[in-house]
């Protein structure tokens, strides 16, 4: 069973594939979103919330990219930007080799067919007045399928996510448990045969035993339908289990990205290290006496100068306050690339703990 597991970069050829198997599913370049804060009589802009500030990354076909970070770090805003649920201020989105938007690029309609999203709150994302079969069939109908074929498709999708369509099809959302509702949401997201699924805290609200069921389901349909996932969660254990690569965000910026095992076993950025230390051990003897991260993240309205983490970092030096550390070439494709935006990682950055010379690039 293990031999045909998800191995990124060698995903099977998909007829919908335009850019070739090595072309990343999604390239995000310099994504920015500043929310204005308006006040005063003339409703003028007085400040900006820098929710997502210059984030670039790519997602390879067939992989699962995990996104972690504290609340307010911009992970959900980023997901909504990718889905075009909110307008971006700057940045480019390249879907399977094609620029999204613009005069020659992929239209929004096409993007929404290729990208689908599953939200955290399973009940508020379902229409309470639609039986779930109709909820699942709604997407295909809007995209032009006949009522009959949309219904047939909905029934087969419900079967795929482990809900018997004869038993559950006519039920309303309030008649289902949390796990079942999340299965419906997954079926609905799959209804347009997307290539990439954005899962924004999709299992966070579920009980542990149900969470495991849904995680297994996500693993199965990923293989069956040749999907790519962006998995956003604050549960570091779940992210490690499901992700091939992980990116860590702090105050709207990407601070570390790399293969999941490397991030978890040898985190480079002090923020990632602290975040990982917040995972709770099952052993009552191994109790934490001091929280690894003190306080809350600073306000994204006026983020700290230089490295945004310097106010909470244990290794802060003058250079951290003065200079913004660079992440490096995020968009250069490489399977085991592990980058961190920290002066301690980059040689000759001026930090006393930085490696002396450019030995490791």
């Amino acid at each position, binding site marked *: 069973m*293990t031999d045909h*597991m998800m191995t990124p970069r060698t995903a099977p050829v998909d007829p919908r594939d335009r850019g070739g198997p090595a072309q990343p599913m999604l390239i995000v370049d310099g994504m920015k979103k500043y929310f204005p804060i308006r006040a005063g009589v003339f409703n003028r802009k007085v400040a900006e919330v820098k929710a997502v500030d210059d984030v670039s990354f790519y997602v390879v076909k067939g992989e699962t990219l995990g996104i972690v970070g*504290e*609340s307010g770090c911009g992970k959900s805003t980023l997901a909504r930007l990718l889905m075009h649920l909110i307008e971006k201020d700057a940045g480019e989105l390249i879907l399977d080799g094609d620029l999204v938007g613009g005069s020659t690029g992929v239209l929004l309609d096409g993007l929404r067919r290729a990208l689908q999203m599953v939200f955290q709150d399973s009940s508020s994302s379902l229409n309470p007045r639609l039986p779930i079969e109709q909820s699942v069939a709604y997407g295909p109908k809007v995209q032009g399928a006949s009522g009959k074929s949309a219904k047939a498709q909905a029934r087969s999708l419900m079967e795929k996510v482990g809900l018997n369509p004869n038993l559950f099809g006519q039920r309303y959302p309030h008649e289902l*448990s*949390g*796990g*079942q509702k999340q299965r419906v949401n997954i079926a609905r997201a799959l209804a347009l045969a997307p290539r990439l699924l954005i899962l924004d805290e999709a299992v966070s609200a579920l*009980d*542990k*035993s*149900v*969470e*495991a*069921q849904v*995680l*297994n389901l996500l*693993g*199965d349909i990923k293989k069956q339908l040749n999907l790519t996932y962006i998995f956003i969660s*604050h*549960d*570091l*254990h*779940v992210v*490690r*289990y*499901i*992700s091939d690569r992980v990116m860590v965000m702090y105050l709207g910026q990407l601070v570390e990205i790399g293969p*999941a095992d490397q991030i*978890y076993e040898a985190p480079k950025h002090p923020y990632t290290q*602290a*975040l990982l230390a*917040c*995972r*709770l*051990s*099952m*052993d*009552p*003897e*191994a*109790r*934490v*006496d*001091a*929280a*690894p*991260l*003190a*306080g*809350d993240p600073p306000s994204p309205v006026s983020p700290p100068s230089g490295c945004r983490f310097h106010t909470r970092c244990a290794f802060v030096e003058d250079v951290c306050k003065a200079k913004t550390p660079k992440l490096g070439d995020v968009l250069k494709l490489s399977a085991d690339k592990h980058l961190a935006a920290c002066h301690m990682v980059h040689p000759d950055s001026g930090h006393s703990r930085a490696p002396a010379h450019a030995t490791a690039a």
Partner: protein
Amino acid sequence: MNAMTSPDLSQATPHPAPFLRVEDLRVKFVSRDATVRAVNGISFNLERGKVLCVIGESGSGKSVMMRSLLRLHPKKRTVIEGTMMVGEHDIGAVSDRAMTQLRGSLISMVFQEPMTALDPLYTVGDQIAETVRRHEGLSKEAAWARALELLELVRVPSPERRLKAYPHELSGGLRQRAVIAMALSCRPSLLLADEPTTALDASVQIQILVLLRKIQQEMGMSMIFVTHDLGVAAQIADQVAVMYAGRIIEYGNARDVLLNPQHPYTKAMLAATAKDQDRNLPLEAIAGNPPDLRALPDGCSFAPRCKYAGPDCIVTMPPPVTDIRGHMARCFKVEAADGPLAFDERVAEPA
């Protein structure tokens, strides 16, 4: 079966006078359509200054049990049976007026969602001071001074400014600290915490856990802490009770229950939690859903989902089996011959 069975856990605990004694607590919600049996016979004791963690999934009755201790359920629709003794107070028998006095001063509660537990129209200081004035009859100035002390106690940075802040002006972590300050305002002897860290980030969750444990030890409070996260239980619990369908199915020292679980449900829940497993293998999920509390199955409630269930399991609810260390499990396949509890899947199979 040569197991040492005892329905009352006090026989297993060495100290004679527990601070909190719950005996055979049953809570039913009656409506025209159905009777929901949310809690089905819970007994446990809690000593002064100890922390009991109640672990269970949604619908296991853990929150209902907590609310019964404060008598927060609607009177007309709820049938509560059994005894609940907190100190010398019999929670089931005291008058409504006396109960109002006990709430907040003897027993206090921290809820899961700090935003809904705070009134959005009053400042944090007003809300903390109100509790103090109500219970201890302090003047407004004295109550505000106490509120300031309390915010310092829960380590809110720049507390003077935060006293005048409205709940929406605080972050989730600070809001939960304010709720904890309010709960501690009259120095309760028993603090009930209903998933106080579930809505928080991992980094803030650990801050709150460290804080709660410190305060609990400093004040010598007893605490019941409800959670569905086993990692949280490991951080804070002295004793752990695992609930399923309104019953405690496993109970014992935190170490025994979390590191050496005996009941199949506790074992399965530990196995189903994602924790550094091989990502190429599926998680060992528990099949099915928890039972409908309107129509509980006879016998062991977990039997329909249990991979070890035999014919006996569907007929009668297994009695508690307790070993000398006080580790209890309700399963036919668990035995305590002379030493610790031991799970043996061959026990009670038909010959």
